[in-house]
């Protein structure tokens, strides 16, 4: 609750700070705001559950944990976003303001207990993202990406709203509790096709937001076209919030598990196939990360398919591990691509990383660890993320889906290792890249946490 109020106020304050002559004040003040919001988030830890706004918003430890991941990711992303000063067209105050506002949306999605709250949350988050995607005004690709994202996103939102309406028609309420009650009655007695249809449409809308196949077609283009810093934002925060919301929704309709599990399972398998196989044929590292984002949505969907006891922790751990590695990977990409350009455009291809390890051993190491973690190699957080996901599937007794996921992980190693090979084993023109100290700290922190959680996942367990 506190983060919602604080972030809204801070967003407005940030917009006003934009009037000041010095743009240098924006970055530190936004970081300060995020740190305050993060601190305030944990005030309620262990005390809940609280309900706010006429029972529309729920604050319990699950909500707070997801909020924590989202806010930590946002902090790290903002901390490495110092590049706006170079661009004359940039309006940093608006960017930071929009980021803070969009976090309010994400937190509403995470804590929703009422479908209207979910809708408002999704819209706040999405509209801010549409704008940020197109923030590189003079760049054609950025404009194209924003338009694509907006059109497709609006369409998906339509589905979602339609689904909510049908659910309301079937149950007479937007409250999750009421929906849960209806579902368990339905499982016992009569069936309502309106309810099924509503749930499916709502799921489609949500699956679009987390870029699950076959609703993923916007992802590669949008991720590639958007300025990298906002791509990072999209691929971590939107995904975490989206999965938190999906988890809540499916958890409350668990009574009709037999109806939806096969749907989610099919989508999970399709997402894994599309994401992993699509990623292998990319030449651009950034585009590969977009496909990798799709494939990780597939792994998370496996946890949702199972929806067993370990699922909650699995999703939290996986989101955290994925966010840390993704931020580190995009962070290195931003530095490298800015240094090496083709025809004035940042070079985001694999070749840009050739010979990185020679002059920039730290960057190469950060990149390597993040790739190992995304690939799920032991001793990194990503391994335990996959481990918890697979155990939640095993608990439910669905081993076949795990076998597919494992096969796809092998494919994943192929494309994640390409960049490690480029940076360590290939020769390239070596430029010493200057990294701001704060930027460096964030990258090292992400790497350190990835390895720490990889060595001792128990630490995390004690926190939850």
């Amino acid at each position: 609750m506190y983060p919602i109020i604080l972030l809204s106020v801070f967003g407005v304050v940030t917009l006003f700070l934009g009037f000041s002559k010095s743009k240098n004040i924006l970055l530190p003040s936004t970081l300060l705001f995020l740190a305050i919001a993060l601190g305030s988030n944990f005030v309620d830890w262990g005390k809940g559950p609280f309900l706010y706004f006429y029972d529309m918003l729920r604050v319990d430890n699950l909500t707070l944990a997801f909020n924590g991941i989202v806010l930590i990711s946002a902090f790290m992303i903002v901390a490495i976003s110092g590049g706006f000063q170079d661009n004359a067209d940039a309006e940093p105050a608006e960017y930071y303001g929009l980021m803070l506002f969009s976090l309010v949306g994400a937190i509403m999605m995470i804590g929703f207990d009422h479908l209207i709250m979910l809708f408002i949350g999704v819209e706040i988050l999405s509209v801010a993202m549409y704008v940020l995607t197109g923030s590189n005004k003079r760049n054609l690709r950025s404009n194209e990406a924003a338009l694509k994202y907006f059109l497709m996103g609006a369409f998906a939102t339509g589905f979602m709203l339609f689904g909510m309406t049908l659910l309301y028609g079937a149950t007479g309420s937007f409250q999750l509790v009421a929906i849960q009650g209806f579902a368990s009655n339905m499982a016992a007695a009569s069936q309502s096709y309106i309810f099924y249809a509503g749930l499916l449409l709502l799921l489609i809308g949500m699956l679009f937001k987390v870029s699950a196949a076959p609703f993923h077609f916007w992802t590669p283009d949008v991720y590639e076209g958007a300025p990298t810093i906002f791509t990072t934002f999209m691929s971590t925060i939107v995904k975490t919030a989206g999965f938190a919301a999906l988890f809540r929704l499916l958890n409350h309709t668990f009574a009709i598990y037999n109806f939806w599990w096969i749907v989610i399972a099919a989508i999970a398998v399709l997402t894994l196939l599309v994401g992993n196989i699509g990623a292998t044929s990319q030449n651009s590292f950034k585009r590969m990360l977009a496909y990798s984002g799709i494939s990780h949505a597939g792994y998370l969907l496996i946890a949702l398919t199972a929806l067993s006891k370990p699922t909650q922790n699995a999703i939290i751990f996986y989101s955290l591990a994925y966010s840390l590695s993704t931020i580190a990977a995009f962070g290195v990409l931003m530095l490298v691509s800015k240094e090496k350009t083709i025809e004035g455009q940042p070079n985001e291809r694999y070749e840009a990383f050739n010979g990185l390890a020679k002059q920039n051993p730290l960057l190469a190491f950060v990149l390597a660890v993040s790739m190992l973690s995304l690939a799920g190699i032991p001793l990194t957080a990503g391994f335990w993320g996959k481990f918890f996901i697979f155990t939640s599937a095993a608990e439910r007794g669905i081993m076949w889906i795990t076998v597919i996921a494992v096969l796809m992980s092998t494919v994943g190693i192929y494309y994640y290792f390409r960049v490690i090979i480029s940076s360590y084993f290939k020769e390239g023109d070596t430029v010493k890249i200057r990294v701001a100290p704060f930027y460096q700290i964030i990258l090292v922190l992400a790497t350190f946490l990835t390895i720490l959680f990889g060595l001792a996942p128990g630490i995390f367990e004690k926190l939850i």
Partner: protein
Amino acid sequence: MLTLLLILLPIAAGVITLLAGERMAKQLALVGGLASLGVAVFTWLQFDPAAGSQFGFKYAWVASGGISFAAGIDGISMLLVLLTTFLTPLIILSAFKNEYKNPAAFYSLILFMEAALIGVFTATDAFLFYLFFEAALIPVYFLAAIWGGENRIKVTFKFFIYTIFGSLFMFVALVYLYYQTPGAHTSEIAAFYQLQLSPTAQGYVFWAFFIAFAIKMPLFPFHTWQPDTYTESPTAATMLLSGIMLKMGVYGLIRLLLPIVPLGMEQWGFLAMILSVIGIIYGSIIAIQQSDMKTLIAYSSFAHVGLMAAGVFSSSLNGLQGALIQMLAHGINVIGLFFIVDIIYSRTKTRYLDQLGGITQSTPHLSVYFMVLLLGSVALPLTNGFVGEFLLLSSVFQYKGWLGAVAGLTIILGSVYMLRLFQKSMFGPKSKWVEGFQDLTASERAVLLPLIVMVFWIGIYPSTFLKITEPAVNQLLQLVNN
């Protein structure tokens, strides 16, 4: 606690080597390797073969899931820990004569590899085992891909994906087994032994394990990564791969596959046996035709490991004891042979048999060392290869007479390719490549001498080593037969 020390010591030595920089890297790494050997020998002196798992430790890792960071040493582990700690300093010493770029990273990776290998051989928790099993891959991948030959990137990439593909199946099997344990789940390997799985389930788990370990060893038909990788890697990495890492696969068969899925073994063991025997013959025949010395030894190693696997699949005392002693012997011989190839290559710049010849004329020492290792490898009585091969073949004979007869061809084929290797490279007229060939230097002799001592020690008095493992193997077989 000694186990923990054995795992952590190489890591600490590796970090120190990495931080100390280029000048002292070699020496520090060697000291680290020798210190580990010292601790291992100390452990051995206190070790009581009959007492089961010893010197262990256990810390909660994922406490609520019953997953712990646990390791201990029983007879089977002890032997392999000794092998690892004995060979690592020799591998480090063998690299001394070559100038590698960035030596600090090179030597520290070898030490990290050692730590991971000791971890694999001592872990008593299934997920810890898996963790080390995968972790061992990363140092050797970097060793091969940074300091390897021309095609190194492509070849090592294939190797990496191939092996990780296999071990992911094992991972799925472990997760499955973990969920079959009663009550609050636990991932202790000993708890997996108590599971009474249905025959169908055992069949699936059998294949998941089999593929993982068959790729690692490698067994026919999963061997296609091996010869290229052995040939392209720098010699130190090839030694690690063939001398020690290959044993991870055999160890996995003994530790996990046999006792966890005995019914799976009943259903599919025969097929696995056939594949192993095919590997023996197939590897030997290809080895006979090779002209690159490194590739030749790679294929010979492929043939030898087939016999070890066949012994394990016979699930008899002779088979397992033979496999264990042969692991020790093969590790020693193959490292010596690869080192000799490296010595010849560093002086002549060629590894091709038709370009070599006449080396014996100027090198009395090299010839003797080479001959002894070679005879060990072809299993001449009184050398280390004989004991293992004898036990292994007798176990295969007991399993199925005709299979034993086919597998026995390995003795003949083995002598053919090995003696051909020696004859073509060492005898005959001196080729222009071997002009001015120098005999062994002191540091090269320091590597070969301990190996030769071990060749004879194991050959003449094998019971020093057999008695380490015997009680543990008997215990294991009791589990299998119940």
